[in-house]
């Protein structure tokens, strides 16, 4: 699936909810399926700055596709990073760089998009794209 197809799939899943509680409960559920970062990568260097909770992210390139793993000590943040990773993981680095993240707004999590929001969703997107950029540079 392309990044866009995954995003469509997520939007579809969220469309059945009509209040915030259901959306958040689902997001917390998604956090439980997050591909967890290996303990050896759970280092301070891999913590994303700008989040009130801790978020660790690691990336590998396998068959010219970026594979992300992550973890967080807060479950809502874990849900957010799980959603992002589901869209970006197993994608070619250039596709990750080109991807927009407007779907976050569509699934009712718009408030998390503000750059000043303490959860650092914007920092997370930036960090995932930085990994993609690094791997894209290797491919060039």
């Amino acid at each position, binding site marked *: 699936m392309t990044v866009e197809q995954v995003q469509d799939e997520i939007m579809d899943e969220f469309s059945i909810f009509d209040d*915030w*509680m259901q959306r*958040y*409960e689902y997001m*917390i559920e998604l956090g439980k399926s997050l591909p967890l970062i290996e303990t050896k990568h759970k280092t301070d260097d891999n913590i994303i700055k700008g989040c*009130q*909770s*801790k978020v660790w992210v690691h990336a590998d390139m396998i068959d010219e596709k970026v594979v992300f793993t992550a973890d967080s*000590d*807060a*479950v*809502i*943040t874990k849900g957010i990073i799980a959603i992002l990773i589901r869209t970006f993981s197993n994608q070619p680095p250039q596709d990750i760089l080109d991807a927009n993240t407007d779907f976050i707004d569509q699934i009712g999590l718009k408030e998390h998009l503000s750059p000043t929001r*303490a*959860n650092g969703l914007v920092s997370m997107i930036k960090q995932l794209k930085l990994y993609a950029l690094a791997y894209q540079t290797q491919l060039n």
Partner: protein
Amino acid sequence: MELNLTKIRADFPILSRKVNGQDLVYLDNAATSQTPTQVIDVIADYYRSYNANIHRGVHSLSQEATDKFEQARQNIQTHFNIPKSHEVIFTSGTTHSINLVAFGFGTLLDPGDEVIVSALEHHANIVPWQMMCERSGAILRVIPMTDDGTLDMHAYKELLNKKTKLVFVNHVSNALGTINPIEEIIDNAHKVGAAVLVDGAQACGHIKPDLKKLDVDFYTVSAHKLCGPTGIGMLYGKEKWLNKLPPYQGGGEMIDEVTFEKTTYADLPHKFEAGTPNICGGIAFGAALDYMNAVGFEKIGRYEDELLQYTTEKLTQIEGLRIYGDNKHKTAVISFNLDGIHPYDIGTLLDKMGIAVRTGHHCAQPIMDYYKIPGTVRASFAFYNTKDEVDTFFNGVQRAVAMLR
């Protein structure tokens, strides 16, 4: 004679708004308090009717603005029982006040002199002093805290010695609400000849301190913590200290005579009020004090204690909830965590329910390090909060816990 909550709440337009579709329950008063119509009107009236620069105009508007601004200074003097009106320095708030003193006091220190901070401080009462110590070579000592969120006063007395020049503590801890025994801290410091600065940012909205009686050397206040606007506050300093300290910022208003060879400085308070001050803010600060005094600090204190007891009793019913700074002598602040749940998660879900609390380290990382936690959820109350709101908050926390566990 108890508070008329219906009347009081009607004074605060913001309290009737909705957040995320829910009635706002504002429990972040330690961060900033809300503003009553009486103060909002003063702000609007200033810009509508008599906005002018002060102290140097010959025209009537300027005189009117100057009179109002100086009247506010007198309000502040009276409220805090400050001996002389020129000991009231308008600043942008507590952070500015502390930096002003730290800048000047550093010039009076020699390498090896000692200054004392407490473990319960906000970063604003730590970092400016660390900068001062770097400049002056003075040594920073720390009064340790104990499990119940109070200062270890025995350790404090051990720290004091002939080399101690200055002690700085907050009146009330922003992260925990602890009311520090400042009388005792001041008396003991004075015995070794050290001066004391008390950061009153978290106290001023709940307690009316008598600065003359306290015999404190410096006291700082932020108006937005007591129903005034942001960007204005005050520094009280004893005249003898303010005369000793060099000016913090240069500019207009703070001078006596300027030539390129030598400039002489204006008398107090102008020496520390360079440039055009926050005139409207100063006047509104005075109005905020008028408002709060009309409500009455004694009544406010009694009512907030009641809210604190009520909330504490409710919250402790929740399994796995720990309140930090569980001491008897505190303002209406409850800093807590729930077993296995990140404070950020609780705060986010409460926000969706229209409940405003603060989560995180509250700019007091040393306290969080002491308890070995990333942060807390902090609910902080004001006299306009109600028991109904506490119930909403309590139900909200339970709902959040059910979602997160």
